[in-house]
């Protein structure tokens, strides 16, 4: 919303020293965070950070390139399985297995990008949805991948360190997350990023301008899948156990919801969307413990609904929040943030 006077203002990473300062403060506090909280919150932070990576990658595809994917749980699964298999069967170290698995995911992303060249809207939605469902079916079929019995993740070692607590793992996850987010932010500001945006806004116009649609569309799928793959690889070590049924359609839907609720085409939005939805997903089960409201809900259930199904209120709340955000602010959380900023900038006028 600020006026840009120079091309370099558009491509620079930080717009002013103040932003750099706050960025450093943020990074610093992220690294210090585990010292002040319970181990449980570190686990939650790991879980959320992983989802942020997926959301950022999916946002590149959905928000910046204008495609749809309802199959990201598939790439997530490929990353998770790839990493674990490469470590167990091929003896790769973690830091090598993770990018390799993510590259495999990227390869599949490229393949899925090919039909996407001709498809859009609901057609693309159903094709990607089918991909997500099929991939878990295939993984479950192959005995090398542990079939439906699943796989246990091996111990995680990086050089001399063994990362077996959540806190130790946190430093790895947060470092990767920050790195990947910065990379993504840079990417969007480059020629490649502008090509993606041009495809989103008008693909035919972009093509006449000389943007190679085939290359950039498949590239967007591949990068997006790469991010999901990296996240999946780490997810395997958060759970320490993976099986095909974990990577459901619901997971893909949740990923998409994070991006849309956060705000399409905004990095900050993806982060906010992932944080909000993950947090709700984990925390809403405690809704009945809220004083007064919980009592009232229990009362309501006994009289009108059933007390055995009372936990399903979390679905209702979750769905309502999604609806409310989209109704009142189509730009999602990012839109709300922009409005707040605007309001305070000119306050009290």
């Amino acid at each position, binding site marked *: 919303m600020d006026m840009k006077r120079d091309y370099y203002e558009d491509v620079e990473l930080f717009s002013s020293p103040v932003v750099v300062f706050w960025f450093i403060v943020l990074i610093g506090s992220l690294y210090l965070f585990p010292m002040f909280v319970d181990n449980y919150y570190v686990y939650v932070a790991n879980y959320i950070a992983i989802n942020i990576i997926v959301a950022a990658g999916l946002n590149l595809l959905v928000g910046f390139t204008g495609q749809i994917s309802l199959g990201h749980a598939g790439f997530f699964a490929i990353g998770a399985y790839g990493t674990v298999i490469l470590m167990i069967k091929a003896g790769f170290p973690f830091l090598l297995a993770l990018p390799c698995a993510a590259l495999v995911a990227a390869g599949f992303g490229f393949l899925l990008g090919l039909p996407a060249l001709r*498809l859009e809207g609901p*057609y693309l939605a159903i094709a990607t949805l*089918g991909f997500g*469902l099929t991939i878990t079916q295939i993984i479950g079929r192959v005995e090398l991948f542990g079939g439906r019995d699943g796989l246990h993740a091996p111990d995680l070692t990086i050089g001399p360190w063994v990362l077996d607590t959540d806190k130790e793992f946190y430093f790895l996850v947060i470092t990767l997350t920050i790195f990947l987010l910065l990379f993504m932010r840079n990417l969007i500001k480059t020629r490649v990023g502008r090509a993606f945006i041009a495809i989103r806004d008008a693909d035919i116009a972009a093509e006449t301008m000389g943007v190679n649609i085939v290359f950039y569309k498949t590239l967007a799928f591949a990068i997006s899948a790469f991010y999901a793959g990296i996240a999946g690889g780490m997810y395997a070590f958060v759970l320490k156990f993976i099986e095909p049924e974990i990577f459901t359609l619901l997971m893909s839907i949740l990923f*998409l919801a994070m991006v849309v609720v956060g705000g399409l085409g905004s990095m900050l939005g993806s982060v906010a969307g992932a944080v909000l939805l993950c947090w709700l997903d984990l925390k809403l089960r405690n809704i009945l413990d809220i004083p007064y409201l919980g009592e009232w809900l229990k009362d309501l259930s006994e009289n009108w609904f059933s007390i055995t199904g009372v936990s399903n209120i979390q*679905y209702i709340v979750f*769905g309502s929040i999604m609806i409310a955000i989209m109704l009142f602010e189509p730009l999602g959380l990012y839109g709300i943030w922009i409005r707040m900023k605007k309001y305070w900038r000119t306050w009290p006028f």
Partner: protein
Amino acid sequence: MIDFIQMIVSGVATGSTYALMGLAMVIIYKTSEVPNFAQGEMALITSYFAMMLLTTMNISVYLAFFISFAFAAILGAFLEFVILRRAKEPNVLGMIVITIGIEMVLLGFVSWKFGAEEKTMPFPIGPYDGFIVGGIYISKLDVLTLISALFFMIVLYLFFKFSKLGLAMKATQQNSVAAQIVGIKTNRIMMMTWGISSLVGATAGLLISPTVMQPFMMWDPMLKGFAAAVMGGMTSLPGAVIAAYMLGIIENLFGGYISIEFKTVVAFAIIVLVLCVKPSGLFARHYVKKV
């Protein structure tokens, strides 16, 4: 040979359910260009409503079904009026997320009220009533589903082609501003579309319910119905129905002769192949984007 025919018959039976769901999705997509992910749950809540009427109020099945259909239509119209119409500057993705939100809310309500345990709905035609013709088993409930699917297809086709309201719906889809200028109340049209669609979808739900009901029963039919609708071109009613029967039959034959494990996903593989050849589905005119 008997096995082969039996598989075809089973495929047609399954396809009928997909067809009803597909029809319901096409109707909404035709007018508002929203792939409605809440379609399955709209049918689900209607089915549970019917079951509640039948088990607690002791009324006749016909009356209960009549009330349920009315409920379905009102529910659809209500959702459009209260939620979808309120969306500001909607984009397709935003609409998809809204319908997913609706889906979660409805699913939550059903599971909250009725619990997760399997139930069945009392219905004059039992789920396992049927007759055997030359060694081939035909279930009466499947016949009823088939008849309903064809009935709705023909009625809706005629409705969109010839009736004033149907034409108005078409006009709304093609150019809503122009439609408003010629005096069509597009808002009201949208509401009716949602009502009709909800009713068609609910038929599928009600015909599944006599066998086994549980809160997740509509997921599979909804996805397959959506898949069929996409394959048929998303805007063509007969297209959706034909694609639904193709999917049902292919699934059954594939399960029977090739691999039962991949039966659930073969539909999606076929769709990707079909879409690679015909990106707008089998029965829709190819849509050429204007610059």
